[in-house]
């Protein structure tokens, strides 16, 4: 009898091309997602070394980080951004790809949204991209992680990466979340519990009844932020929800191939007796809607909580970090989260820009208006497909009637590489993934929340418990 394996070990073993004596291995890469920011130097390096791409049909590419979310007819007005996007156009034209969704294409969108929605992310794959939120694709029982540009070049040239095996962590979320509590709240609560370095060196498998109960979009939200818990990879085992989601998508297998793939996919679960290096258990019923108050995703609490004081922390480095965060955020210790007023709202990003996210936000917004103190409330769909679906359902009209801007797809104000950004001192309720200093614009102050909580904050002009207004 073979030893019980975790899902991570199954995925790892299935991709080892060559194992070194020191435990590192050459791992085969099935899917390579490419965007404009982290790829130009890799394509250039490949060319300078006189190397050819190994398997261009593994590439799915799009322009998302730099692209504007309005006035598309004017093109990309920032010359430096335009050059980067045009460089991607030229590189993909030369090299080829399974699919390329350039700027203005009707399928263009955030790389981590378009991969899954086209069925280009399939269970059992290794998926890499020069972007840390590649962990998103782990929702499909993929070994998916972000890489740097040197590794982008390595994958282009060899279809492989040299990897060291991670330790394994099971995060089990037991029970059932309450109404108004979402995948975003689960993952923020986890990060609050284990910290932003808690998953460092680990591959996290998310399991338990509350994870099983999530849709694929919810699972993508959870896996997306595994990196914010310090883990390069986070994933969920295959179940019927996974298979149902994939059926009929454009790059998903068809006919006999579908049957053969599905029977393989059903093996992509951790064996019952498999051993994990660490197990973390969360009680779903105890999770409240979460709001971050600091400059690291671990600086988070429930909506009914309040901002801590530096002296609450025993470790001097942590105390200093909290003091610095409060100063940057312009918050006093003991301020109730519900008293924090906001200037802007951002609903979007690879964490929360899918159709279910927009539906959840629209449900809160419907028939209401954004507070007069809110200067700008943006909804940026994750892709052209999400945008058209939302428009077919009338969600755009709900948002616009309430005073939101309805924009074109892209990364937008998650990282503010385009014109969508916070001005110094502005405070934002954001459905994105990082509240770092300056992340949404120099001097900007970010509070991470779920789409429903962002919508509720837009209406109230401050953070409120979405369960109390619905």
């Amino acid at each position, binding site marked *: 009898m073979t030893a019980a394996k975790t899902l991570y070990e199954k995925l790892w073993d299935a991709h080892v*091309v*060559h194992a070194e004596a*020191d435990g590192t291995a*050459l791992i*085969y890469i*099935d899917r390579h997602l490419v965007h404009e*920011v*982290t790829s130009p*130097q890799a394509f*250039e390096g490949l060319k300078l*070394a006189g*190397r050819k791409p*190994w398997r261009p*049909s593994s590439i799915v590419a799009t322009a998302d980080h730099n692209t504007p979310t309005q006035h598309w007819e004017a093109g990309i007005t*920032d010359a*430096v*951004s335009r050059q*980067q996007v045009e*460089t991607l156009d030229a590189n993909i034209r030369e090299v080829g790809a399974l699919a390329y969704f350039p700027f203005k294409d009707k399928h263009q969108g955030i790389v981590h949204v378009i991969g899954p929605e086209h069925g280009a992310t*399939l269970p059992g*794959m290794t998926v890499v991209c*020069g972007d*840390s939120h590649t962990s998103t694709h782990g929702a499909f029982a993929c070994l998916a992680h*972000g*890489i*740097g*540009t*040197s*590794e982008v070049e*390595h994958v282009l*040239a*060899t279809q*492989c990466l*040299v990897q060291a095996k991670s330790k394994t962590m099971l995060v089990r979320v037991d029970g059932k979340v309450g109404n108004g509590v979402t995948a975003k709240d689960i993952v923020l609560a986890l990060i609050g519990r284990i910290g*932003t*370095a808690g998953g460092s*060196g680990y591959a996290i498998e998310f399991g338990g009844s509350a994870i099983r109960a999530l849709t694929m979009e919810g699972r993508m939200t959870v896996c997306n932020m595994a*990196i914010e818990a*310090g*883990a390069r990879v986070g994933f969920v085992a295959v179940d019927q929800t996974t298979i149902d989601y994939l059926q009929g998508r454009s790059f998903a*297998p068809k006919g006999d*191939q*579908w049957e*053969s*793939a599905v029977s*393989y996919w059903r093996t992509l679960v951790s064996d019952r007796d498999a051993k994990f290096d660490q197990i973390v258990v969360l009680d779903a019923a105890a999770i409240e809607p979460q709001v971050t108050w600091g400059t*690291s995703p671990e600086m988070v609490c429930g909506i009914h909580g309040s901002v801590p004081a530096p002296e609450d922390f025993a470790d001097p*480095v*942590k105390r*200093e*970090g909290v003091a*610095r965060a409060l100063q940057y955020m312009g918050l006093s210790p003991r301020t109730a989260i519900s008293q924090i007023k906001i200037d802007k709202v951002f609903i979007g990003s690879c964490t929360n820009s899918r159709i279910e996210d927009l539906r959840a936000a629209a449900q809160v917004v419907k028939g209401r208006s954004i507070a007069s103190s809110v200067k700008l409330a943006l909804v940026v769909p994750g892709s052209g497909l999400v945008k058209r679906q939302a428009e077919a359902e009338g969600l755009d009209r709900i948002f616009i009637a309430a005073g939101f801007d309805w924009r074109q797809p892209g990364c937008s104000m998650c*990282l503010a*590489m385009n014109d969508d950004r916070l001005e110094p001192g502005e405070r934002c309720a954001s459905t994105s993934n*990082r509240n*770092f*200093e*300056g*992340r949404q614009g*120099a001097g900007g102050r970010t509070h991470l929340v779920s789409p429903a909580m962002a919508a509720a904050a837009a209406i109230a002009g401050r953070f409120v418990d979405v369960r109390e207004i619905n």
Partner: protein
Amino acid sequence: MEKFEKHEGLVAPLDRSNVDTDAIIPKQFLKSIKRSGFGPNAFDEWRYLDHGEPGMDNSVRPRNPDFVLNQERYQGASILLVRVNFGCGSSREHAPWALQDCGFRALIGESFADIFFNNCYKNGVLPIVLPKAEIDALFGLTEYSPGFRLTIDLPAQLVVRPDGHKIPFQIDPFRKESLVNGWDEIGLTLRHAEKIREFEERRKREHAWLFA
């Protein structure tokens, strides 16, 4: 890649936890399609008092006197002393490119974020993990001994203080060998090209749907 064997240099301290790659090199500088020139914009929001954009003449921008790396005593430093989870966040390799362009050859800290850690090796920058007690001591020495320098001996896997105290550190054998020899990792992998092809053919037979 530049070889890394023995390195001796001035140490600069950055006493903060969770320094993210957005802080190391802000997003507006990622629009470049080059690998070099990021040094003047490393830690841009902390280093300067004004807001930086690509194309500015950084030599005339107002410097933040409170930012530790601006202090005269740390100019020319090639070893950066850091705390916990350094390099967290975005996978941007522009972060190690910027640090390297600033002259840093090694980083010493309690822990590093995985992707950043990996990216450092690809650029001949050595990230060294040491126990908290050693790091605390090094922060003290750096602050109270002006001109504090360290020697890093990679083949021997030692950080050597001027007082002779030797601190051993761990490193994966493959990474060590690559750095010491300045190997081109892609070239190394391509030595296995035949094996990669065989693996790929087998995978096509077993899981044709992956190659549709």
